[in-house]
């Protein structure tokens, strides 16, 4: 059924630990050479999903297909996957070189080939000088890179990365991330990548999956997820978002424009998709707001008071609240320096299409 280019497809995967539902009805597809990122708060089931794909934990329902072949009865050792474990799971009795070469020896490669391949992978993750050591003699970040190298060395069809860079410093992280991308281009493997770093997720992936409590909340291309989050959870989880309840007052169907009341005042929202209810949530991003002179007249112009101002060099962050309503706080962000001080009243303009309806009604 799967298309020829679909390298990995998960359908309605469900999994329980005892009575605890760890995954429910997870479905997604990745084509050859794509990188899928799993994002979600701690304990939402990301590692569990990777383990189910690798075959360590049998699913209670649904299927995993790799290159169009059902994996149900294929044990982990026969699946064309390699996982980089969150816990590293290095073999404590083997040297770094033997750890990296473990999968290759299992695939019966010659000693010479193993040595060259191990040396090459070690070079890519910057471990060339550590090959003779035991895992216990390495730092946390070095161990993590051994785990990564061990998985990458076998060049599987599907790579499963469980927070592979979490323990590296920023510079090393950039370097290793680039190496992963380069390897992926070279060998064309498909990857499922778990990370807590949204910038990393947005930058690297072809497909982002946001999970919560074992359920997919939203799935899509990074820019779509960022620009059109489906609900408050996703909006809040990816980047910073200002979320506010709206009441629909009037609709102009021809132009797709909605007149709404919001905590900021009356506003106009332009949206291609209609709201799911007349009382719903909407979000806008801090960088969508522009500061104007108090006198300027424009659509969606609101008067707000600045409570705090944080200068960050290339940008400026403000926390503001509508006049006479200190309970609703919003964040806005400007590029460069803005001559605004705390306690001042300013005008902000938010474009009608920057305010987006979330598919979530106010209850």
């Amino acid at each position: 059924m799967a298309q020829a280019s679909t390298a990995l497809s998960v359908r309605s995967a469900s999994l329980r630990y005892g009575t605890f539902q760890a995954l429910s009805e997870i479905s997604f597809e990745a084509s050859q050479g794509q990188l899928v990122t799993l994002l979600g708060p701690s304990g939402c089931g990301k590692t569990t999903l990777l383990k189910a794909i690798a075959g360590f934990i049998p699913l209670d329902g649904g299927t995993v297909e790799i290159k169009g072949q059902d994996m149900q009865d294929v044990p982990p050792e026969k699946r064309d996957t390699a996982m980089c474990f969150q816990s590293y799971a290095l073999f404590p009795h083997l040297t770094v070189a033997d750890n990296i070469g473990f999968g290759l020896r299992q695939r019966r490669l010659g000693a010479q080939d193993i040595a060259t391949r191990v040396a090459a992978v070690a070079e890519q993750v910057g471990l060339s000088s550590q090959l003779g050591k035991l895992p216990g003699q390495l730092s946390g970040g070095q161990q993590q890179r051994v785990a990564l190298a061990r998985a990458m060395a076998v060049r599987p069809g599907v790579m499963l990365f469980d927070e592979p860079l979490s323990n590296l410093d920023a510079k090393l992280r950039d370097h290793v991330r680039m190496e992963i991308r380069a390897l992926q281009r070279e060998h064309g493997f498909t990857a499922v990548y778990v990370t807590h770093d949204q910038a990393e997720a947005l930058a690297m992936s072809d497909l982002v999956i946001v999970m919560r409590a074992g359920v997919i909340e939203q799935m899509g291309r990074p820019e779509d997820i960022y620009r059109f989050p489906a609900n408050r959870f996703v909006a809040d989880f990816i980047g910073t978002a200002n979320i506010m309840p709206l009441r629909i007052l009037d609709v102009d169907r021809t132009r797709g424009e909605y007149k709404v009341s919001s905590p900021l005042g009356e506003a106009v929202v332009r949206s291609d998709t209609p709201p799911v209810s007349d009382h719903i949530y909407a979000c806008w991003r801090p960088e969508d707001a522009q500061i104007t002179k108090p006198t300027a007249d424009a659509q969606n112009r609101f008067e707000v008071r600045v409570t705090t101002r944080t200068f960050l060099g290339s940008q400026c962050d403000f926390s503001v609240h509508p006049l006479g309503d200190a309970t609703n706080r919003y964040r806005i962000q400007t590029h460069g320096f803005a001559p605004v001080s705390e306690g001042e009243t300013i005008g902000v303009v938010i474009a009608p299409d920057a305010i987006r309806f979330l598919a979530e009604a106010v209850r």
Partner: protein
Amino acid sequence: MKRQRLTPYLLLLPGLFPIVAFMSLVVGMAVSQSIGYFNFAGDDRFSLEFWEGMLSQNQFWRVFWYSARIAILSSLISVMLAYPVALWLRRPFPGSDLISAMIKAPLLVHGLVAAFLFVNFISFQGFLNVALVKLGLIDRPIRMQNDSYAIGVVILQVWKNMPLAFLVITGSVRAIGDDILDAARDLGAGSLARLRRVILPLTLRALQAALILIFIGAAGDWSFQVVAGPTNIQSMAQFMHRVQSDNAAHGWNEAAVVAVMLMALSLFGSLTLAGLMQLIVRRMGR
């Protein structure tokens, strides 16, 4: 400052000193008596005659190799039985606690009691004979007690020591994380490869410890041999005791030679076995 640095050593004294003193005196006594000192009858003088006399006796060497054989068989069989069970019980499941408790139960049974239970079980009118007769497998009870191949002794040793091996091995088997085994599977290792390349190397130390402990215990065995062992041969401990009490003039000196040889057997035999195990595990891990 000075006093503080001394404190731990002073604290060690009451516990450690008696042990060290006792052990060195006892071992020293055995070694000196074997070369002619501390005689209870006659003068003390250095002499190797007891060593020469004992080591040229055929009977001594029969006894020596008999004890070595029992020790090797007992330790290997115990470990080989305990290892798969420990692997099976690596992860808890309903009923696994009960099984662990059942396996460990023999540890609480005194060796002599175990020997009695066993002899009673296989004796002429013991349960086994009666059951075999009732099942029609044999016509009349057969004599199984004190068999001349020492099968009974080995069975008793394994009965008593398998739980010990289980206890020692279980700890190290449980310490292997699930993720490590999953990683091995993920990299293409089937169950045999996981055993050879991951599990065995990681539990080698425990295997060796179990082998050493059981070897030493079985090499120095007295009770099982006396109650259930063959009547045509003796174990080292039994032989030593008999030599000491029977040979009036130089009994102590000759027994001392046997004692030193028994200590040597325990030490070198168990270490050799542990070394061989290491070699095998390394080989298999290749």
